[in-house]
């Protein structure tokens, strides 16, 4: 039986020091399709440290979701090396190192919200009393306390996605992998959830990898922005982005914010023109 520790471990010196959670070296992935091979990822090098909030940004087809799926062991790279928590992605998955949040909430419609959050806990063999406590705690974390008896269709899209974040956090993984989690939501809800996510990140100290195609979202949330470009999918530029821990939505009007957003936009444009020059 797998017992997952309840609280994050007490911070020791080793934990506080930056640690390579993800280390990608010269990784490539080629999909074999009917129209011939597609270079989804080409020579990717990336290091993510413990506690960072890293965003992958780029146009569709740049491989940002594929890279996230490789980290999650949902896709297999064709060549190159990748380690997650010092292990292979498949070992890390078996150790339940990460919680994954999909583009859609992907809640099981026949389970209540509480039942959905309970799902990974049941799979991992956590006893009933403990499950109850965790459901309550994680619902509170995403401001959904009292909704555990509701079925998914009774909740709005934003609430469903929050429930899916609570589900990903319920077994207390070190890492949160998020694949355009707010892409399907309207701007107002998205802003609100971004703010909540940032608070959540500050509170839980988890490493977050976040796929998005929204520049403001990436700049607002991240400590590091990975700008990617398509055909072949590759990393164009990595931009450091630390706007301090006390961020509110107002920060988006500040010159620092606009400066980084400008750099990201330039990077994206550059990635594209490079692409066109080859056509």
């Amino acid at each position, binding site marked *: 039986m797998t017992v997952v520790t309840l609280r994050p471990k007490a911070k020791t010196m080793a934990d506080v020091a930056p640690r390579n959670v993800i280390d990608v070296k010269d990784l490539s992935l080629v999909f074999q399709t009917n129209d011939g091979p597609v270079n989804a990822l080409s020579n990717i090098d990336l290091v993510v440290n413990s506690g960072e909030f890293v965003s992958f940004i780029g146009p569709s087809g740049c491989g940002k979701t594929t890279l996230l799926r490789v980290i999650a062991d949902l896709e297999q790279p064709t060549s190159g090396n990748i380690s997650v928590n010092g292990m292979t992605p498949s070992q890390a998955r078996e150790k*339940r190192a990460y919680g*994954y949040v999909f583009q859609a909430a992907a809640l099981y*419609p*026949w389970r209540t919200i509480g039942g959905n959050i309970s799902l*990974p806990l*049941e799979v991992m063999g956590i006893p009933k009393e403990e499950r109850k406590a965790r459901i309550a705690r994680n619902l509170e974390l995403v401001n959904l306390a009292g909704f555990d008896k509701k079925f998914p269709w009774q909740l709005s899209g934003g609430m469903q996605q929050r429930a899916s974040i609570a589900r990903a956090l319920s077994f207390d993984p070190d890492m949160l992998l998020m694949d355009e989690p707010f892409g399907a939501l309207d701007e107002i809800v998205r802003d609100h959830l971004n703010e909540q996510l940032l608070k959540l990140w500050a509170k839980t100290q988890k490493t977050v990898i976040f796929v998005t195609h929204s520049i403001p979202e990436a700049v607002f949330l991240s400590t590091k922005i990975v700008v990617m470009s398509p055909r072949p999918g590759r990393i164009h530029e990595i931009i450091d982005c630390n706007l301090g821990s006390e961020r509110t939505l107002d920060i988006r009007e500040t010159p620092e914010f606009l400066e980084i957003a400008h750099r990201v936009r330039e990077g994206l444009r550059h990635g594209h023109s490079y692409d066109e020059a080859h056509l």
Partner: protein
Amino acid sequence: MVERRGLSAVLHDRVIPVGTILLVIIALWYVFAIILNAPFERDQAARANTTISTGQLIANTMAQERPVLPAPHQVAAEIRKTVFDIAPTSKRSLVYHGGVTLSSTLLGFAFGTLLGIILAIAIVHSRTLDKSLMPWIITSQTVPILAIAPMIIVVLNAVNITGLLPKAMISTYLSFFPVAVGMVKGLRSPEIMHLDLMRTYNASKAQIFWKLRWPASMPYLFTSMKIAVAISLVGAIVGELPTGAVAGIGARLLAGSYYGQTVQIWAALIAAALMAAILVSLIGVISTLVNRRMGVRS
């Protein structure tokens, strides 16, 4: 539009439309009974060298002892007599015969559903079985059941298996098919994302089955069970035809046709149809209860 609730809703959504069609069918039935039974009456009149008034003719067509097509009220009277007036233990009781058919229907249906589910689970989890079993499952249903049913009965009789089991086996043979096909589809119905989620939890195949595939397949299960129970009844009746007309709705049909008892045949037919309707709606009720538990929005 006015939203209707409760009894009024049932009346407007179910009773009135279904009842209207029923009335039309009964009216048409009377028309055909008169048309089909009239030649016999004219013949009788011609033989006796008398003429018969139209009113008398119509009255006579609805009261024949062995009509070509019995009128609805004759069938109703026969059903009332054989269901309520005769003790259910008597061999002339429709309740007795219905009970015989029902027991082999239910046994065959239970086996068939179980077999169908087991086959579907095997097919979904094994590529080899998917490739090898599926064509045979489809082929099995192209064999005409009327041809194979007497064979099954005769072969099993030869090894001293008689009574309920051979008939139930024919029901099973028919009813496993819709369940197998429906459940293969149902067990494969989960979205990729729902499956990926289980993979991120490092869930075992058994966990994926019980927590995802099985609940996702429930709507498919009940739809296919409705078809399965109806054809189980057909299978049981077909199985009763070659047994030398001992007992059951099928035996009742066969005996009726031997002795030209058309009223008895139609009474048995209507009884079988009613039984099928009740069985299908019972599954509908179970399905609704399960749906409610699974939070399907109503």
